């Protein structure tokens, strides 16, 4: 630098003085320029707070002085007043000034350098200065004034203010959280906790910060927590996990934590931020639910087992019922069969009873009836012989009377058969012989009615034991009925054969029977009569032509032989009569 070029030893006194003046002048100029070009505010004041030096920056930014000379000898207040006077309508135009004087006093009193934050409005705009003030000491150690410099920090202060407000706001948020918030270092040392955290653990902030949180966690959970925290990295910077904590008094609670790793520029974890909340109730609820679930499952299992047991029982009962039903069905079926058989048997019994009573009746009355008949018979004949000259109608009357006696006698005779039928003598004989004998007895009638006979008699029939007279009577009855039913002639078929019984009925199964079938082509039997044909006295013949005892007697005869007689209408017309004998 120029002013530092020379040295004292090389200069003469006046020259030295001149040179000194020049040097000072030069120095002043440089200092002046330096001061006026620096953007910081620079000033010096005497003990009366009047400026003895100002730089350009203070003139422009604070005092609104026209140059650096104007403030000399004047106070801050001079300029403040001047500004206010210039803008009387705006009380906010200039509020700076008093604060400067006050800080001057402070420094003068404390006699040492101090720092001040000075602010207020200048030209209607807020100005904030970071001010350093210090006493000016002369060569004798006397304080002769103050020197100060100020740097405009309006913007910085605003930012700081806003930051402060923002932090306050966030702090409030953090503090008002019901969640526990903390920050901690990778080694577990807590660097921050919120109020909730403190109150939750019942500790003061200072007892927590700077210490590890691990003692707050039960032994059994610690390694898990450590593992979780260590698992955080740039790829997974956030994790959530649950663990137990120990409260003052040893009470155990459950917490859920959401840890957030904070990285430096090199992606190295420098800190963790963690938010936690109490989940004890949830855990207890879960536990309760778990137990409830286990209990329920147990109940369900028990009930299921119980039900399946009952179900099995029901199935067994159903099966039993089904079997019972089956048995009942079978029983019912056999009962039905038995009922049918009983009905049949009852019919037969009724029939037999009818015949039996008829037989008994006949035996009882035959004597009483026949004696008067004998008298009438004799009487009618006597009269007929005695009056040979009787007129025609009288003769007819007598003849009618005789016929009536004969008819009455026939009835009684047939009735008597009932009482005799059981008293028969059996002899070995061939059925075919009996049939032929019977045919010869009705041959005349067959010819008279122009009925052709078709015989088909088996030659291999077993010999039977029966009363030939009675069986002959049966066949004569059958033939006479057939003849009577065929007034216009036709064919009378007679067939005999032997067979084995295959269905249960009158005969036992596999019993050998000899069968005779007589078929006519006659009128058949009206359906309503078919049940009555074996009833005693039932006849379709006109009065005097039949006693109605023929089939009743035939049936009784067959029964007395252990055989059977069946009469049915043929589909193609006429009647088929079947007579069966056990061999």
């Amino acid at each position: 630098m120029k002013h530092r070029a020379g040295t004292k030893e090389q200069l003469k006194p006046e020259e030295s003085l001149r040179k000194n003046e020049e040097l000072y002048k030069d120095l002043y100029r440089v200092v002046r320029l330096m001061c006026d070009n620096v953007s910081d505010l620079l000033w010096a004041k005497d003990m009366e707070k009047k400026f003895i030096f100002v730089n350009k920056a203070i003139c422009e930014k604070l005092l609104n002085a026209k140059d650096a000379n104007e403030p000399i000898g004047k106070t801050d207040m001079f300029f403040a007043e001047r500004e206010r006077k210039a803008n009387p309508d705006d009380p906010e135009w200039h509020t700076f000034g008093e604060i400067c004087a006050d800080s001057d006093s402070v420094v003068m009193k404390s006699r040492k350098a101090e720092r001040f934050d000075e602010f207020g409005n200048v030209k209607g705009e807020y100005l904030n200065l970071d001010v350093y003030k210090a006493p000016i000491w002369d060569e004798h150690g006397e304080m002769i004034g103050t020197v100060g410099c100020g740097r405009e920090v309006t913007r910085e202060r605003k930012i700081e203010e806003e930051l402060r407000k923002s932090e306050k706001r966030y702090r409030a948020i953090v503090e008002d959280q019901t969640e526990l918030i903390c920050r901690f270092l990778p080694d577990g040392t807590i660097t921050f906790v919120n109020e909730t955290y403190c109150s939750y653990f019942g500790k003061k902030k200072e007892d927590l910060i700077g210490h590890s949180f691990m003692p707050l966690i039960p032994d059994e959970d610690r390694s898990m927590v450590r593992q979780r925290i260590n698992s955080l990295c740039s790829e997974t910077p956030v994790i959530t996990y649950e663990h137990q904590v120990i409260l003052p008094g040893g009470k155990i609670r459950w917490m859920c934590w959401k840890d957030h790793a904070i990285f430096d520029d090199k992606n190295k974890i420098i800190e963790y931020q963690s938010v936690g909340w109490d989940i004890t109730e949830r855990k207890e609820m879960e536990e309760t639910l778990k137990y409830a679930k286990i209990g329920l499952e147990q109940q369900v299992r028990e009930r299921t087992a119980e039900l399946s047991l009952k179900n099995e029982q029901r199935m067994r009962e159903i099966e039993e019922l089904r079997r019972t039903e089956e048995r009942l069905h079978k029983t019912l079926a056999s009962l039905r069969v038995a009922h049918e058989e009983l009905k049949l048997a009852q019919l037969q019994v009724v029939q037999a009873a009818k015949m039996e009573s008829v037989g008994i009746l006949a035996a009882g009355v035959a004597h009483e009836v026949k004696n008067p008949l004998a008298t009438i018979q004799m009487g009618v004949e006597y009269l007929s012989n005695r009056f040979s000259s009787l007129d025609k109608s009288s003769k007819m009357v007598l003849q009618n009377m005789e016929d009536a006696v004969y008819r009455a006698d026939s009835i009684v005779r047939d009735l008597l058969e009932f009482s005799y039928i059981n008293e028969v003598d059996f002899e070995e004989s061939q059925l075919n012989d009996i049939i032929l004998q019977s045919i010869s007895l009705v041959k005349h009638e067959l010819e008279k009615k122009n009925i052709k006979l078709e015989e088909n008699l088996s030659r291999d029939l077993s010999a039977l034991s029966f009363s030939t007279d009675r069986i002959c009577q049966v066949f004569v009855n059958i033939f006479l009925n057939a003849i009577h039913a065929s007034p216009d002639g036709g064919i009378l078929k007679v067939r005999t054969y032997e067979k084995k019984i295959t269905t249960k009925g009158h005969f036992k199964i596999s019993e050998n029977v000899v069968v005779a079938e007589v078929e006519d082509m006659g009128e058949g039997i009206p359906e309503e009569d078919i049940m009555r044909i074996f009833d005693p006295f039932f006849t379709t013949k006109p009065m005097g032509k039949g006693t109605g005892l023929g089939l009743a007697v035939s049936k009784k005869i067959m029964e007395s032989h252990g055989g059977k007689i069946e009469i049915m209408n043929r589909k193609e017309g006429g009647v088929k009569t079947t007579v069966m004998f056990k061999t």
Partner: protein
Amino acid sequence: MAKKRILVIDDEQSFTRLVKLSLEETGRYEVMEENRGPRGLSIARKFNPDLVLLDIAMPDMGGGEVAAQIKNDPDLKDVPIVFLTAVIKKSEETIISGIPYIAKPVTLNKLIMCVEDNLRK
């Protein structure tokens, strides 16, 4: 030709009377009628008949017993008997065995034929 003597024993008086009338009408028979069995034997002894028509079923004494008495009487033992009967019961079969019978009612012709067939020769 002497008339044949016929004794008819039957509890039915109307019948015995008609038998008597009818047979005597022919002019060939003399008929004695009796309606009570117990008196049959004594009447037969008195009447000495050529044939006895004897009813089986009678109160007091049946025809069977009367027949037995007659057959056991030395004077009457050869007198032919013809039973008259309305009903031949099983129990009566042994009684009438070997003895002819007429079933009532009977026509006069049959009666006469039977009487003629069995008259004491």
